[in-house]
């Protein structure tokens, strides 16, 4: 690929790199894997740059590549083309990782660890959904990134939150009720 493409790509991606890293960190919950995921995203996106309409929404496109790369981590790690995602525990060892790195572990409180564990038990699709939501993206943007109808997102988001709460409960959480609030 000519260098001009590389330059064009850099100028397209640079403004969104922070957003990509934030989303990647939410998904993976550790820095090294988040960095790997962003890099993998950029490599993939670069290879497909010819399919990008420059007037289109670059950020949504990049986020889509990123979430696909994240979800692919589970798919690629599976022997069988059939895989279970619901529990999420099957995916723990796959790339990119879902375990906190040493840096994160050291700084992590018990409660954060519980949250981390609950998060890891979610399916990757659910994590992608909640991560984008937590990053403040609107439903129409998330629908575009995930590739499903906006109307279908409501139920999925609700299910994902319910699953997270259930896993958190399993992790021995008792404090969550005192921290509720409905602002986004």
């Amino acid at each position, binding site marked *: 690929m000519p*260098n001009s493409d*590389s330059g064009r790509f*850099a100028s397209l*991606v640079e403004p969104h*790199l*922070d957003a990509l890293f*934030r989303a990647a960190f939410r998904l993976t919950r550790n*820095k090294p894997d988040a*960095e*790997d995921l962003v*890099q*993998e995203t*950029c*490599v993939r996106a670069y290879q497909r740059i010819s399919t990008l309409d420059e007037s289109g929404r670059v950020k949504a496109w990049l986020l889509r590549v990123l979430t*696909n790369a994240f*979800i*692919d981590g*589970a*798919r*690629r790690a599976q*022997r*069988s*083309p*059939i*895989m*279970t*995602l*619901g529990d999420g*525990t*099957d995916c723990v060892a796959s*790339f990119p990782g879902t375990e906190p790195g040493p840096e994160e572990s050291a700084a992590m409180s018990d409660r*954060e660890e519980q*949250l981390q564990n*609950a*998060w890891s038990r979610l399916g990757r699709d659910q994590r992608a959904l909640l991560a984008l939501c*937590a990053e403040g993206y609107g*439903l129409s943007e998330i629908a575009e990134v*995930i*590739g*499903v*109808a906006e109307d*279908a*997102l*409501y*139920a999925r*988001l*609700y299910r994902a*939150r*319910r*699953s*997270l*709460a259930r896993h*958190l409960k399993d992790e021995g*959480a008792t404090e*969550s009720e005192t*921290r*509720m*609030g*409905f602002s*986004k």
Partner: protein
Amino acid sequence: MNCQEINRILDSNTAELLPVDQKKAIDHHFGSCPACREAWAAYREMSALQIPDTPKALRSRIAAALAPAETRAFNRSLIVGGALVVGAAVAATMALRIDDSAPEFSQNREDSAPITPSGPLAEHEVHPNSTNRVDYTPDNNGQSDSTSPHMAAPLDPNTVVVLLIPNRELSERRATLLDQFYMEILRHLQSVPGLNVIHPEHTAPFLASGTLEEEIARQLGAAHLVVLSTSSDPSLRLLITPVDVATGDATGSMGFAPPFDKRWPAELSSDAADVADFIKEGLTDLTPADRAAAIADARASVLNSSLPPGERVEALGKLPQTPEARTEDIVLAAVELATIAPNLRASIWRAMYGVDDPYLIDPLISSLNYDDAEHRRRAAATALATFVAEPRVKAALEQARSSDVSETVREAALHALSTVEERDQLALQALLDEKLPVRERLGATMLLEGRRVREVKLTAEAAQAVFDIGAGSTDADTRAMAWGKLGRSGVDNPNFKQALLDDLANHPNIEVRTMAAFALKHFSNESDVRIALEQAEDDRSFRVREAARIVLGNAQK
């Protein structure tokens, strides 16, 4: 406001934009609905976790990865080498799958035949539950008037709603293949006696009206919901999510990446059966009495000439493939239906596959010779396999094999012409042939297992060969495949037990542990096996836990 409305508000707005009355409504709802309260609290807590700044080195790292091609390739393989290795593993999996479907061992064409949009389930007189009590119309233009999902009408535990979320970005070819795959899944689900399946055709209007998925199921009185959707990933991953409607919880989730690079991979039908089994395991727990009653109902419907043909054919498809269920009067009714409803013939011939009643021969030959639709001729050819010893059947099949305009009909005829014994012999030969690659040998068992791959037994000799392949293989894929085959074999050779127990307890591969659990079902009445399965209920993998739970549950029954 109910849960649906509250969560829609939460997802659609920010606190700053919410009117005071909505904030109060949310508080009020949270006060009375712990599920919503806890779900939202957990999400909020997760959202509040800190995120570090983007590492400065990341930019240069990416720049290096995107350097000109020759160096980029090196950098990429260095940095994401793990991913590339895993990618290679996937390629190997695909190779395995292709081995599995090697032409000489391909499954019965009946199972592998594509169901086109004009195929059986699109033969629109067949509507699952067309006599169902449910009115397939969204309430209030799709908006529920229930105050809480928990206050909805009782849900029928034997009814499942299937929702199909369209992905408009798919190419036409992929969309068609996907439809075929979903139709296969539906066909398998519809064949479960006593299970009412509400077809996506009936639920599409609800989706279009914006009704929440669980709410659709509630309105239709179904205790179970299955959402079929696709990721927009270029590799096309199908997502299958069964949901317990009462709780709104997914009972599992399956991602599936079929090898759609082929025209219609033979193994796809088997995959669809696996997916359907996965769904069934999560949603139905019919008792034998339920099943018997359902079969009796289905028989009565087939024989009731005052019912529309579509309903009768649907009922025909629900009858199990046993001589007790497919009696002479049922065969006569099937032939009658094929005459009065020619557009439903493919479904009828499929339902009659394996029924050894000579009354079927002439209608089948006639259908093979004269039906315009390729899928009907193909179904007829497949069903004629039962009568291949009859000279006129053989002649008709040979004629079709040599001169039918459709390749798939020619293939079906060719397959039907070989006898069961010939195919079994060929497969067993391959299974025992140590010169062949092990995966090809295991692939041969598909033929030995027959059309109903989950039900028909392997011979003791074949099972021993499968075990030897599994036990002798250090490759997890092969080992898991072998244990999976043993699980379906019906062979309870005690020599197999210890290796399966060891793998269930210790093997690092999830698939191997899962398949070992299933294969141990033959020994589930033995105390050491029960203990091992009970321990496996605490396995870190959801799939292994589920497998152990299912095996133990079945053993108790």
